[in-house]
C-alpha cells in the first residue's frame, strides 16, 4: 500500500456560482515531486490554496500528511511548507528577521541554528543582515523556499515557483527542488506552466482542465503511454484536445 502524502476525494470549490474545482480526486505518494499542470484558470492555485488550508473546500475532503484540511487544519499547517506565487516579504526587515519571524510562527522557539542551516542549503551565507527590499526576483524565490522549509515540513507546496525568473534563476530553483526531494525526502507539490521544467523535476504529474483532473500518472508512465509524441508538451496538448473532443 502506498504511503500517501496528499489524497483528495471529490474535492470541489466554488466562488459564488463559479465552480473552480470539480470533484477533484488525486493521490500523491510520499517522496514524490508532483507537477500539477493546466492552463490559466484551470484551478491549480485553488487546489494549492485548499490543500494549504488557505481556502475551505465547498465539498469533498482532502488529507495532507495524514491530516484533514478541514477537521485538522492546524496539523496540516504544521506539516507543510508553502511558497505562494509571486511571494512577498516584509521588505523593511532583513533576511534574518524575516526568517526568524516565520520560523517562530512555525513553532521553532530557538530558530537561529536552523535558519543558519537553511541559509547554507540555499546559498545565502553572509547576506543575513540585508533587507529583502534589495533582493532580486530569483533571490526572493529562494528566500520563499527558505521560509517554507524552516520547520522541516514533510510536504512542500510550490505555486508557480519559476514564475518571472530568468533562465539562471529557473535552473537554480530546479536544482534546489530536486535537492530538497532527494536529500531531505520532502514530498513536493508544484503548480507550473513550464512543461520543460516538469520533465526535469517531477516524478509524477496531473493535468487540470476547467477544475477537473483529466490525467494523473507518473511522468515515466505518461511518456510511455504516448510513444508517438516527442515531448511532454505534445502529450499535454493532445490530452487537452481529447477532452475538448
Amino acid at each position, binding site marked *: 500500500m502506498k504511503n500517501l502524502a496528499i489524497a483528495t476525494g471529490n474535492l470541489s470549490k466554488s*466562488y459564488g456560482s463559479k465552480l473552480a474545482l470539480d470533484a477533484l480526486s488525486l493521490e500523491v505518494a510520499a517522496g514524490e515531486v508532483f507537477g500539477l499542470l493546466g492552463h490559466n484558470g484551470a484551478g491549480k492555485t485553488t487546489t494549492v*490554496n485548499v490543500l*494549504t*488550508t*488557505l*481556502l*475551505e473546500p465547498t465539498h469533498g475532503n482532502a488529507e495532507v500528511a495524514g491530516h484533514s484540511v478541514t477537521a485538522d487544519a*492546524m*496539523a496540516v*499547517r*504544521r506539516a*507543510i511548507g*508553502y511558497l*505562494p506565487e*509571486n*511571494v*512577498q*516579504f*516584509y*521588505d*523593511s*526587515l532583513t533576511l534574518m*528577521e524575516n526568517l526568524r*519571524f*516565520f520560523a*517562530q*510562527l*512555525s*513553532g521553532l*522557539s530557538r530558530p537561529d541554528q536552523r535558519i543558519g542551516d537553511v541559509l547554507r542549503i540555499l546559498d545565502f551565507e553572509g547576506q543575513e543582515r540585508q533587507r529583502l527590499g534589495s533582493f532580486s526576483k530569483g533571490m526572493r524565490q529562494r528566500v520563499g523556499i527558505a*521560509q517554507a522549509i524552516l520547520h522541516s515540513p514533510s510536504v512542500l507546496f510550490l505555486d508557480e515557483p519559476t514564475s518571472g525568473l530568468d533562465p539562471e534563476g529557473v535552473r537554480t530553483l530546479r536544482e534546489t527542488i530536486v535537492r530538497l526531494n532527494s536529500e531531505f525526502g520532502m514530498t513536493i507539490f508544484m503548480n507550473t506552466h513550464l512543461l520543460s521544467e516538469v520533465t526535469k523535476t517531477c516524478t509524477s504529474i496531473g493535468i487540470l482542465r476547467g477544475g477537473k483532473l483529466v490525467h494523473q500518472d507518473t511522468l515515466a508512465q505518461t511518456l510511455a503511454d504516448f510513444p508517438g509524441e516527442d515531448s511532454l508538451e505534445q502529450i499535454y496538448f493532445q490530452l487537452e484536445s481529447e477532452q475538448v473532443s
Partner: protein
Amino acid sequence: MNSTWTIAQKELLDLRRDRLFGILIIFLAVATLISVGVAAASFRTELDAYNLYVQQLSASGSATVPAAPLLFPLQLLRGGVEYLEILGALFAIVLGYGTVAKEKYRGTLQLLLSRPVGRFAIPAGKVLGLAVVWLVVVALLTVMTTAAILVIGNAPLQGIDIARILIAALIAWVYLVFWSSLAIGVTALSHRLSTGLIVSIVVWLAFVLIIPQIGDTMDPDNQVPGGLFATLNILKADELKVLANFAGFDGIRNGIEVSSVTKHFERLSFAFLGVKDKYNQLPIGLVWLDMWGYAITLAAATLASVTFAVGVTSRRNLQRKIS
C-alpha cells in the same frame, strides 16, 4: 501567546522602519511640543513679570506683596491633550488600518495564514503591537511636554503634579488603543480595504469632530467668545440658577456629548490635569470620585474595541482578502 508576541514584535520592528509612521509621529510630537511650548513661554512671561513687579516693589521699600497671578502649570498641557484627541485618534486609525492593509498589499497574508498559529494570534498580535507603540509614543510625548513645562515655563512641578500627568498619559494611551483597534476590526471586516479606512474615518469624524461640536454649539455659555455669563457679568451662583431652568435641554446636550468616546477622554484628561476650573487643585481622590463613570466607560469602550478587533479579524475574513 508566543505567536501573538512574535507578531507584535514584527509589527514593532516594521513600524520602527516605516517612513510614514515616523513622519506621523514626528508631526504629532512637533505639534504637541509647539502647543505646550508656546503656552509654557507665556506662563513664564507672566511669572517673570510678577516676580519683577514684586522685586521692584520691594526695592522701592514697599512691604505690600501683591497677590500672585493664578497660574497652573498642568493647564499648559491642554493643547497637547487636544492634539492627541484629534490628530492622535486619526493617526491611530491610519496605523490600525495599515497593519491589516499592508499584509494584503505586500502579499504576505498568505504566508501568515499558512502558519500554524492560533485563532486569535494574528489580530491579538497586531493589537498588542500597536498598544506597545502607543505606550512608547505617549511616554515620549509625556516626557517631552513635562520637560517643556519645566524648562520653557520654569514652572515648579510637585510629585502630585507628576502623578496627575501620568494619569492623563494612561488615559491617552487607552484612548489611542481604542482607535487603532477599531480600525483593525473595521478593516478586517470590510470586503475592500479602502472601505475599512473610509468607515473608520467616518466614525472618527462623527465621534471626534461632529458630536463634540454639536454639544459645544448647544452650550449657551459657548455662544459668546469668553463665555455668555462672564460677558454679562453674571455670577456663578446666578448662572447655575439660570441653567436650572434649562435642565432638560442641558441633559440632551450632555447626552449628545457623552455619546462620543472622545468627550470621555477629554473630560477625564481635563479633570485630572485641572484644565477644567471645577477640578483645578481638587485632590485626585475627589476628581476620581466625580469622574469614575467616565473612566469606566472609556475603559469599557476600549475593551469592546479590542474585543471587536480580535473577534472579527478572523482567518475567514483575512482569507477573503486573498481570494
